[in-house]
């Protein structure tokens, strides 16, 4: 029995609102979903597991029509749906009233229910969100009813404090052949081959770094094997640019340009400036944003002061006291900035 597991597609999301690539990304999420459906057809998967948050917010009926149309193009694949914390089943949700294709099975229950597919000898367990949060660890106690000669799959969404906390040992002990997880956007195996987060199909914001795609898996007599298939059309890439005392605005711009070229211009970058810069240099951040799809530039560089030496030299004076005041603690970002700005002003460096 072959399956494809996706999660957190977030149709309708508009990533990075206000940035030039934002609207294109909104469309790309739909396109990617469309493509993954085509992929399901090509792979002749028996099951398409969608582990919640197919939509970013409450789905509109016309959107469901589109989705249902796409499902109709893979009539030989059985699609299993659930509602996650984003597209939770509000009162009168279109999800429940929608006339789905015969190949679409929905786990709309508030309590754990199951869909049994006799021709596949497979049961899929799961439930849906009826609110944005569920704090009870409701997956902990779910056990498959029949284990002999039947493949049991749990379709689950959550795994943090506010969204159904999951205890791995309990989940493992439940004895599912596969747990298809959603909610955490970073893909990753949780129970080896027997349970994984598919991750968001397309990354949605700067925190969704790393590869994104779907999980292709197979359940057989010898157990379950899965593999992650990278599929997203763009990535968020954190670029750490280490600055030295010799660097200037233009040299840093050149470094960033080079990194962007190497990593692919279509990707979206978050830039971290680190290291020690010439105390006389202050970066013009707005200029850095123009170098590509840059969602954020964080300047954590520190002026190349030898604080210990300054503290010794100026000990007992205001400058010495000032440096000592900040040196004696683990500085927050703001305290770091204060140390730098204050010292600069006290030393009379414009």
């Amino acid at each position, binding site marked *: 029995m072959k399956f494809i597991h996706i999660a957190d597609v977030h149709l*309708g999301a508009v990533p990075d*609102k*206000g940035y030039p690539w934002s609207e294109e990304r909104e469309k790309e999420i739909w396109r990617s979903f469309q493509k993954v459906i085509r992929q399901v057809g090509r792979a002749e998967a028996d099951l398409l597991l969608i582990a919640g948050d197919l939509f970013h*917010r*409450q*789905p*509109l*009926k*016309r959107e469901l029509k589109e989705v249902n149309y796409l499902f109709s193009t893979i009539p030989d694949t059985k699609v299993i749906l659930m509602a996650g914390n984003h597209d939770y089943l*509000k009162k*009168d949700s*279109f999800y429940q009233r929608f006339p789905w294709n015969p190949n679409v099975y929905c786990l709309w229950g508030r309590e754990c229910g199951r869909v049994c597919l006799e021709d596949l000898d497979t049961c899929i367990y799961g439930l849906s969100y009826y609110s944005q949060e569920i704090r009870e660890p409701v997956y902990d106690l779910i056990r498959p009813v029949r284990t002999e000669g039947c493949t049991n799959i749990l379709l689950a969404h959550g795994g943090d404090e506010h969204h159904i906390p999951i205890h791995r040992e309990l989940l493992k002990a439940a004895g599912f052949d596969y747990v298809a997880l959603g909610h955490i956007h970073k893909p990753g195996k949780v129970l080896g081959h027997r349970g994984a987060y598919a991750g968001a199909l397309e990354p949605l914001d700067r925190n969704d770094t790393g590869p994104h795609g779907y999980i292709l898996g197979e359940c057989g007599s010898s157990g379950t094997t899965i593999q992650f298939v990278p599929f997203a059309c763009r990535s968020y890439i954190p670029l750490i640019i280490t600055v030295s005392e010799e660097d200037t605005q233009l040299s840093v711009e050149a470094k960033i340009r080079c990194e962007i070229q190497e990593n692919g211009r279509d990707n979206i970058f978050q830039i971290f400036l680190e290291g020690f810069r*010439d105390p006389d240099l202050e970066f013009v*951040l707005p200029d850095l944003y123009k170098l590509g799809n840059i969602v*954020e*530039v*964080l*300047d954590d560089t520190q002026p*190349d002061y030898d604080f210990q*030496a300054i503290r*010794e*030299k*100026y*000990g*007992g*004076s*205001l*400058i*010495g*006291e*000032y440096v000592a*005041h*900040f040196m004696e603690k683990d500085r927050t*970002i*703001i*305290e*770091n*900035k*204060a*140390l*730098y*700005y*204050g010292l600069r*002003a*006290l*030393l*009379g460096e*414009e």
Partner: protein
Amino acid sequence: MIIEHLWIKNFGKLHNRELDFGEGITVIFGENESGKSTLHTFIQGIFFGIRRMRGRAARNDVYSRFEPWENSSYYAGGIRFSCGGKTFRLTRNFSKESQRAELICEDDGELLSVEDGDLGILLGNISQVVYDNTVSVGQLKNQTGEGIVAELRNYMSNYQSDTEGQIDIEKAVAALKEKKREFDQARKEELRKQEELLNGLKGKLLFLEEERAELEAKISEAETRREGLRQGEGKADKKDRPLFLRAEHRGSMAVLLAGAVVIFLSILLLPGMIGEVTGTAAGLATIGFLFRFLKKSSRNPKEKHNAPEEEGEIQEEEKKLDWKLEHLREEAEEKDTFCENLKEEYRELLAKHSGEMTPLQEEIEGIDLAIATIQELSRTMQSKIGNRLKNQTSKILGQLTGGRYTQISISDEFRIHLNTGEHYTPLEQLSRGTIEQVYFALRMAVSDILCREEELPVLLDEPFVMYDSRRLQNTLKWLSENKQQVLIFTCQEREIEALEALGLEYHLVRL
């Protein structure tokens, strides 16, 4: 601490010199350019090292100024001093290739570690800056009385002035505020953009709600009509309305009008043959329609319930209305969901804007914290030593002036007033000599307060130029009575003459 002996291998213009000092007053006499300042800097350098500065500043820093022109690898020297009953030897190589300091206790031969702070302990844990501003007294830079008063005030505001220039707290705070203004501007722009995003959403929402209201009106209209049909009140409804407004008659009405126009036109076009034929045909058609229309409208109200075909029509209309209602309701629901989604987005955006700190806000907070910390620290330092400083300065000043001035007051703005017996006089109204005495007393007081752990030699670089001989004698007498070791750098014979006149013991070093 007593400096006993020092030797200079190579330091600025001094080469292979050895000098002996003793307890009490030592006068280091030399013409201009004989190396007094060099010696002064050497003593500071031997204790605190000479750090190279970075970049541009390096061109004219202390290191470069005193780096010997020849044999720079012998940029070095040493000093022997006694401290706490023991004698120590400190040697230092200043050259950048082999910077090294060695501290040995001569009594037991123990090698001490400069890096680990053993020298710092011997110096009473004071920093170079404190040293520069207390025991090592340079000439006043300002020549005017007013300038000196300002210098004094600034000196007091941070109890220091070092070779790289004084700290001016007010200037520093002003610079920070200026910097903050720049960020405030950018932050304003950022807020404007956030507002724009929110307003965009708000606008969309308003538009949607308007559309929703229109839909609602359409729905209720359709519902009323549907209700009317069901209750058989359709007749009354229709009778009240002008004929041509009834939807089912609109088509016929249009044909009627068109016919009338054609007739009118054909009359105008007469007597053209073709026109006549067309006119007649159109006229006939119109009459036909008119007849049918009149017949239909005349029988419509009365015969409605009786005719089976009319029943069918009503059912047809009911179906249409039902279909329309369903469609409208669906659209309304769709709009409701969309509205809800937008509201959710709005709330999320609002929460994000108020929750997350942007990099700009971090800069602004950083500057705010810097300003607050500088002000707070300067206040604490001031209050910590302010009172003691006043008392100590008053005491020393009293001794120096033979009891003429025994009370000074220092305001929060570091304005100094002297008690002249009858009243407090602002410092700037006193003579330059008196101002210099206050300055001297203040530095001695600061050194008493800041260098309590170990009494260090007092180094005085031409401090008495403006003193008359009586003041000079009082000061020298005070120094010999109160300080273990005093090094006076001078290019005049005045100090020697005064010491001779007082009959005080002193050492003389000629450079």
